[in-house]
C-alpha cells in the first residue's frame, strides 16, 4: 500500500550560488522557508516537482521535503531540513546571516 501523503514544501539549490531555495507562495523561488508554499495536495506537489526538474538553468536537485504548519507558517519536520533553512551551526554563514 502506498504511504499516505504528508504535507511538503518544494525545495532545491540554485544552480549558480548553490543556495537553498523554496518554491514560494508567490510562484517564485524564495530563500526563506517561511515564504514557501505549503503543499497539501499530492498531485499539485508532484506537478510542481516535475516542473522544477525542467528548470535546469536555474535549479539543481529539486525534491519535496516534509513540513508542518506552525503559527500559519510552514516549518520543517526533520532536523536536516531545519539546518537547510538557516545554515551551519559553527558560523553565522548562509541564510541565518543573509536572509
Amino acid at each position: 500500500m502506498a504511504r499516505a501523503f504528508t504535507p511538503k514544501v518544494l525545495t532545491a539549490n540554485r544552480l549558480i550560488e548553490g543556495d537553498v531555495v523554496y518554491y514560494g507562495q508567490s510562484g517564485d523561488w524564495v530563500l526563506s522557508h517561511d515564504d514557501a508554499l505549503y503543499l497539501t495536495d499530492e498531485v499539485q506537489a508532484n506537478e510542481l516537482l516535475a516542473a522544477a526538474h525542467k528548470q535546469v538553468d536555474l535549479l539543481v536537485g529539486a525534491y519535496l521535503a516534509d513540513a508542518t504548519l506552525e503559527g500559519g507558517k510552514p516549518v520543517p519536520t526533520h532536523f536536516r531540513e531545519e539546518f537547510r533553512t538557516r545554515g551551519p551551526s559553527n558560523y553565522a554563514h548562509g541564510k541565518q546571516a543573509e536572509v
Partner: protein
Amino acid sequence: MYSYNEFDKAFVQNRVHQFRAQVERRVDGSLTEDEFKPLRLMNGLYLQLHAYMLRVAIPYGTLNSAKMHQLAFIADKWDKGYGHFTTRQNIQYNWPKLSDVPDMLQALADVDMHAIQTSGNCIRNVTADHFAGAAADEVEDPRPTAELLRQWSTDHPEFAFLGRKFKFAVTGSENDRAVIKAHDVGLRILRNDAGEIGYQVIIGGGLGRTPMIGKVLREFLPRADLLPYCEAIMQVYNALGRRDNKYKARIKITVHENGIEKIRALVEERFIIQRAAFGGYDQVLFSDIKAAFAAPDYINAYTDGFEASLKTDPAFRSFVDTNLSAHKNPDYAIVSISIKKHGDTPGDATSQQMRVMADLAEKYGHDELRISHAQNVILPHVHKSHIPAIYAELRKVGLATANIGLISDIIACPGMDYCALATARSIPIAQQIAVRFEALKLEHDIGPLQIKISGCINACGHHHVGHIGILGLDRAGVESYQITLGGDGTQTATIGKSAGRGFSYTEIVPAIERLIYAYLDIRQSTDETFLETYRRLGLEPFKAALYPETSIAAE
C-alpha cells in the same frame, strides 16, 4: 619538494580550460545536471547542503609558502575567508559559486595545484606521513613514492572508472602516522636483511560502514617493482571487485569475500605480466623525483635561546611538550600547529592564519608546510633557536594552542553543518567537548587521547580508529551519537568496539565526561594512557560509567 614539469603544467591548465567550457555549457543549459555532475565531480566540485564545496588536492599533504598564500587568496576572493583542512590532507572551500570555480581552479593551476581526482571512483589523492622527510624514526621519506604514485594514477585511463574510490597511503616509518592499515592500499617503506629498500604492501583496509584493518599482501616488495605491482592490484580489483552493490564495492570487501590468499595469487600472476611491460623508465623518473625531495640545507646555530625560553616561560614549555616532535636532525624539531583552538572548528584556518603559517614556513621552516590527517598544520623543519619566535607569532593569531594529541585535538568531519551525506552534526560536538575539558582544566592530566567524530557511517572522521569514536546518526528523526572505544589508527591498528546505545545531542558531551572521569579513577598511574587502560580492562568499566542506570539496575 616536487615542482611541476611542462607536462604537469599543460595537463592541469588544459583541465581548467575544459572545466571552464563545461561550466559555461551547464549555465547556458546545453548540459543537464545529470550530464554535468560527473564532470564537476572529476574536478572536486560537490553540491553540499547549503552551497557548493570545492575540494582541493594537497598531494601527500605537502605545501610551500607560495601555495599556502594562494589558498588564503582563494579563501578571501571567492569564499568566506577560511578553508577546512580534511582527514585526507586536502582543503575544502565551503561556499564557492559555480560561476567562480573556473577562476578558482585557474588560481590553483597558477601555483601547480588542482582539484582533480578529489572525487569520483578513481585513485584519489595519495596521502603520506605528515612528518615525512623530517621524522627521526624514518627509514626513508615516503613522498617520492607518493609522488610517483600520483603521476602514475593521475588520469590513468584504465583506472578512471573503478567500481569505487581507491585510496593509497604511504609511510616511511614503522610508527604509522598515515593510518595505512585503513586504506585500500597502504605502503610501508622498510629495509630488508640485505639492506635494500622496499615496501610492505597492505591491502583491503578501510573504515566506512564495514570497517576493516588491512592485510599484508607482500611482506617485502623491491622498490623497482612498485608500479607494476600496484597496477596488478588495481587490475585484479577492477576485474574482481563488485559493481552490483555500492556498499560492497571497495577492495576491502573484495579481499574479505575472496580471501587474501586468492587475491595474492591473482596479483602475483598479473604482476609477472605487468612487470614485463615496464621498461625501467619509472625508476629513472623515481630518481628525478627523489632528487626534488632532498633534505633542506640545515643551518648550524646555537639553541641556547630555546633552552632559556623553556626555563622561563611555562606556556612556551607546555607548547613544546605537546606540539613538538623529534626531528632527524637533533638541533631541529617538527612543530605541529594546532588548528584545534578550544571552541573553534577542527581543521578550519582563516586566510590570515594561513598567511602567518606561510610566512613562518618561509622565514623559519625551509619553506615547507604539511597538512596532517588529524587536520593540523606542520612546520616539518624548524631549527630549535627559531621556535620561541614562531610561538610568539602563532600566539598572535590563535594558533599556539598546546593540545596536539590531547582530548581537544579532535578529528571531526564537516557533518550535517555542511555535508549532504551526513546524518548528524559533528563540529558542534567537537567544539563542546574541547570547551568543556578546557574549562575543567583536565586536558593535560588526561594525557594522550584521540577523539574522532564522524557525522555519518562513511566515517570521514575516522571514528572507528579513535580511542574514543563518536558516530552521529539519524535515529527516527533525532540526532543520536554512538560511542566506540579502543580504536587505534597506528601500526597497532584496531577497530573500536561499540559501547552500547547512542546518546542524544545534549547527552553526548556529559557522557564523554563520565567516560573520562572513569578513566582517571581506574588508571594504574598517570602514565597509563586511556588506550592502555582500555586494553587492560576492556569495555565494562567504561560502559558502567556511560550507562550508570543500567549498571545500578543490574546490581
